[in-house]
């Protein structure tokens, strides 16, 4: 019998304590970010989709189309083509397609690049109703940027 009343009182007390906690939070400021109006700065290591790094002098991509990234990609979403040109050491990249729809953002392409020609972009507002919008031509993207 005493257990009954003990449970009754302690139970009621626990309910009021719970109300107290949520009541306190009701008056505290919100912690959420109002996304479309506010934006978050991505951390320096944020792994977005990859992009080509331009050569500082020429503005052309540093990539020499060695194809290591294409080989190392688990999802097979990179397609690189290059050609040999007169007067240029190594190959010149002519086509760099990233199929972002299958990319798993593992970063193995960046790791496998020995020439420091790839990096992660900080872009994360990617949305489109069309699948084709996510097949990126990275050379073109680089040109747009500069």
């Amino acid at each position, binding site marked *: 019998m005493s257990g009954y009343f003990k*449970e009754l009182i*302690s*139970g*009621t007390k*626990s*309910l009021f*304590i*719970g109300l107290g*906690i*949520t009541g306190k*939070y009701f008056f505290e400021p919100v*912690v959420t970010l109002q996304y479309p109006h506010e934006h978050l700065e991505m*951390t*320096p*290591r*944020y*792994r977005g989709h990859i992009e080509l790094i331009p050569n500082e002098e020429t503005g052309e991509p540093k990539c020499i189309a060695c194809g290591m990234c294409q080989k*190392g*990609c*688990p*999802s097979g979403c990179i397609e690189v083509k290059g050609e040999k040109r007169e007067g240029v050491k190594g190959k010149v990249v002519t086509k760099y397609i990233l199929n972002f729809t299958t990319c*798993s*953002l*593992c*970063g*193995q392409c960046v*790791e496998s690049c020995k020439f420091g020609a790839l990096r*992660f972009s900080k872009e994360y507002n990617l949305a489109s109703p069309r699948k084709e919008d996510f097949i990126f031509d990275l050379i073109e993207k680089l040109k747009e940027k500069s």
Partner: protein
Amino acid sequence: MNGTLQQDVNQETFTLNLGPQHPATHGVLRVKLVMDGEYIVEAEPVLGYIHRMHEKMGENRTWAKFLPNCGRMDYLSALSYNHGYVAAVERAAKIEVPERAEYIRVITVELNRISSHLLWFGAFVLDLGGFTPLLYAFDDREFILDLLESVTGSRLTYCYFRFGGVYNDIDDAFIAGTREFIKKQRKRMPMYDALVTKNIILIKRLKEIGPISKDMARRYGATGPVARGSGINYDVRKHEPYSVYPELDFDIPVYEEGDSMARYMVRMDEIEQSMRIIEQALDKLPEGEIKPKKAVKMVKPEKGDYYHAVEAARGSFGVRLVSDGKNQAYRLKLRSPTYSNLSLYGEATKGMLLPDALALMGSLDLVIPEIDR
């Protein structure tokens, strides 16, 4: 009345399909319930709705290319899965890991474990009908995600560990942030305690509900918090030590009751233990390299059969590799904890009420993609 219902009413029992779309299954799990009123006569989990053949994928690509798959199995404690696979391959290919890298692995894995438990805590209370703790838990979890993002670069499906080390080194900002998080979380736990754990409604719903006996847990091979809630003192970190866990001092919370409350308490205690591990690991963190001196180029383990298990947030995650000496696995078998934990569901719920059975399901902490793999 429709046909099937009519048939069912003529019998004493009826069949209820819980899922594949149901708010309480957290994914595409389907449980076929044979019910007598609100009592469950038989429960049969039906799996395979999100089967993606991860094991087969592991046999069709090089060792390194399988790395991103690990995080896609249990997306809530992706780093443990990364760790399991990486450690298994390291054991097979005899790759030495620098000590600093091991410490970083332990720190990040334990952070990930806390975030997984926090999410489970919220989702579990949500299963029981309380919405608010979920968002409080998310608030705290967000802190961990920010920390992990600052080192790994992604928020959920990290692919952070590499053979022989880790991808990035941690910096002072991360260490300071982690210490701050632990301080904040320690202050936050009493709030959870008062709001949820001590709440009479929750106690009534969990205490002595959904018992899983020691014997049942053993028979089905349950591991992790489910086994520890049934009084089985088994934790891979202690009993088959790997990485730098032997050098760290922590306890394994074990509860004898075996009810949903015991599983709940195990996880809540584990959050505290993980924080202890992280603190010690941060104190002991040695200077040095994070990758082996001789860069790992092509992994080619010798012929043989290798196994390595780690303690993931949901139990023991084991990786069995059979190598034929080539640059990809001959056979890759993944032992996922939730698969075993779920298989006891049918027996455990016999004769239980529907809401209790759902509480039990929540307390198993299911991640469906990991069950199906």
